């Protein structure tokens, strides 16, 4: 019963042992900390970089040019913005050279709200990330997908951006990662004892990795997590479990809501989305990025362009408020970012609307 941080750690271990990953680095990624969310503890090839995001992305690009598949971390996506031109260069290297070079590198970065992180630990990055062509952008919402998506990223021949929903990093999964101990309380403790670094002195500690297996979540494949017929809700990351909870709540009211976990933001699974929207005629896109020039707005545009005459109601977006930041106080964060009651309320509105 791994949590998402443990799932990421196990995927990286699988990557350095089986996929040719030779450099996993970033600020506080290596010992003794192993990442501010512990997602890189105990790994063989981790190291601590200078506190320099542009250096980190540039270094990852160079390592990728050299054929050394790197996984680099930007400690919080709030600090990735000063690397934008390097991210653009990584994204355009193959295109600008007419296919001569490719840049197989993975950048991981925690995103979103949920930890009362105030202005600079609550940002989202999906609107900006999906606006940089040449990258593949993924975001898991559960530990098994976290494992399978990261393995897909490390195998990919292109730059991949792995967005970690920080609010879900301690959430345990209910689907087994191939090789992890049984999904029981005892198995959970066993995994903890095997791969979680102890508190205090860690200089002599070494992890005991479970025998992990290859498992991929294909990039570009969404997952239907609730099947329904009256409304489609599309989400990813932190808000995905909330959407599933909203569907469960509405089911008790007799309403049938389909929930799709997009999982890959770019290139996304339009086939799955369009099939579901055609079926239900109603759609809400939910994410926690600020609502203006939001990625969900693109999805609404495409929905209108291609499915307009099949819609039963206006397609809607539920996203973060367009404020300069997420305020620290609980009341401010809750009012700024989509929460369960907001999703249920908007779902009821859309279900009640008549075209």
């Amino acid at each position: 019963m791994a949590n998402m941080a443990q799932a990421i750690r196990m995927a990286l271990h699988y990557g350095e042992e089986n996929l040719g990953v030779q450099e996993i680095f970033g600020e506080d990624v290596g010992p003794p900390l192993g990442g501010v969310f512990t997602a890189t503890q105990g790994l063989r090839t981790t190291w601590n970089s200078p506190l320099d995001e542009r250096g980190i992305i540039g270094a990852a690009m160079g390592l990728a040019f050299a054929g050394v598949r790197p996984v680099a971390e930007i400690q919080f996506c709030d600090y990735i913005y000063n690397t934008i031109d390097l991210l653009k260069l990584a994204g355009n290297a193959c295109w600008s050279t007419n296919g001569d070079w490719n840049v197989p590198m993975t950048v991981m970065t925690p995103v979103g709200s949920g930890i009362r992180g105030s202005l600079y630990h609550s940002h989202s990055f999906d609107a900006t990330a999906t606006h940089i062509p040449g990258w593949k952008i993924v975001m898991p919402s559960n530990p098994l997908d976290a494992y399978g998506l990261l393995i897909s990223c490390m195998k990919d021949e292109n730059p991949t951006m792995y967005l970690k929903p920080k609010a879900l990093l301690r959430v345990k999964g209910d689907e087994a990662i191939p090789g992890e101990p049984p999904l029981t309380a005892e198995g959970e403790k066993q995994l903890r004892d095997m791969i979680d670094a102890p508190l205090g002195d860690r200089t002599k500690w070494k992890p005991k990795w479970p025998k992990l297996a290859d498992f991929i979540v294909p990039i570009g494949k969404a997952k239907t997590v609730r099947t329904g017929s009256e409304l489609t809700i599309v989400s990813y990351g932190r808000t995905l479990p909330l959407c599933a909870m909203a569907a469960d709540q509405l089911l008790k009211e007799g309403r049938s809501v389909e929930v799709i976990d997009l999982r890959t933001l770019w290139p996304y699974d339009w086939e799955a989305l369009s099939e579901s929207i055609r079926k239900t005629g109603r759609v809400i896109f939910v994410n926690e990025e600020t609502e203006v020039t939001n990625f969900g707005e693109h999805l609404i545009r495409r929905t209108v362009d291609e499915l307009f005459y099949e819609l039963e109601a206006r397609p809607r977006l539920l996203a973060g408020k367009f404020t300069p930041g997420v305020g620290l106080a609980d009341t401010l964060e809750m009012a700024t970012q989509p929460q369960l009651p907001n999703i249920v309320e908007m779902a009821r509105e859309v279900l009640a609307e008549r075209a």
Partner: protein
Amino acid sequence: MKKSSLTKLDPKLLAQIHDLMVRARALEERMIRMYKQNEGYFWLGGPGEEAFNVPLGLQINKGQGLEHEFLHLHYRSSAILLGMGMEPMDALRQMKNTATDPFSGGRNFVNHYSIRKWNVVPVTSTIETQYATAIGTGLAQRKSRRPDCKGITIVNGGDAGTAEGEFASSLVWSTRPGEELPILFIVTHNAWGISTAAATQHGEKHIADRARAFGMPAVTINGTDVEESWAAIEEGMKYVREERKPYFIESKVSRLYGHSSASGANRAESEKDPLPEFEAKLEKAGVLTRKEMDEIRERYEVEMREKAAKVKTEPMPDPSSIYDFTYYKQRGKYF
């Protein structure tokens, strides 16, 4: 051809350097003409840097993979590439943005090279980002990971760009204790950033002083002098290759045709031209006669004129190809 009394370099090598310098100059001047004749949208390049760049190109261990040099170049590097053996026709193709342009298929500006088989990573228009990506190939070649690796990383850029953060990043990352990187740093200092004089922007006496602060050997040289350039590059490469640590060369060069076509691409008479100075030395040393050098110049001017005429007949990129290679090996619209 007799042994020069003025130089330590072999006369055959001197003649080869001269030949390549003239060829590089003829190439750049032909590309400027193409711009002025509306046979290309934009020009920027490196006339005035040949005395440094040709010796650099000739000393590079070219090839693909970690055992060869990785090159993170800026957009004034045509003479380096010619020194390595690039076909000038290919540069002319990029100038004309034809489908046959092997560096970008008509997608990028001239002098934006990409040659994977020689470890030439994509040249970018963004200033100084090449110093950040150089960290990565340096990391791949570093001693702690590959003790027996002989390949090194070479990065070059201009003086104005050293104000960018990536320059500082590369100095920090390449000198981490125990993790030093085998990088030959080059700054070709032409004393200009587009229209802004270096003297108005640099408080440091020499840009090389910034490298010295990180404990790396650093020299400031006259990059318009072939022999001085050759010796500095030779020494720098030897140090980096053997010590697996960084070395810094600040090379004072000229900018003979301004920043780019945006400022007219007209000859700046106040700038020192390295070519006649070198030719005078060669003539005095008996390496080449004036007549021989005039014939070389004529030969390359004809070559570039004929090649430029041929390039004009080559096809433009297919509009349907705009999505190709957004991803590796991908063709056509993918979403």
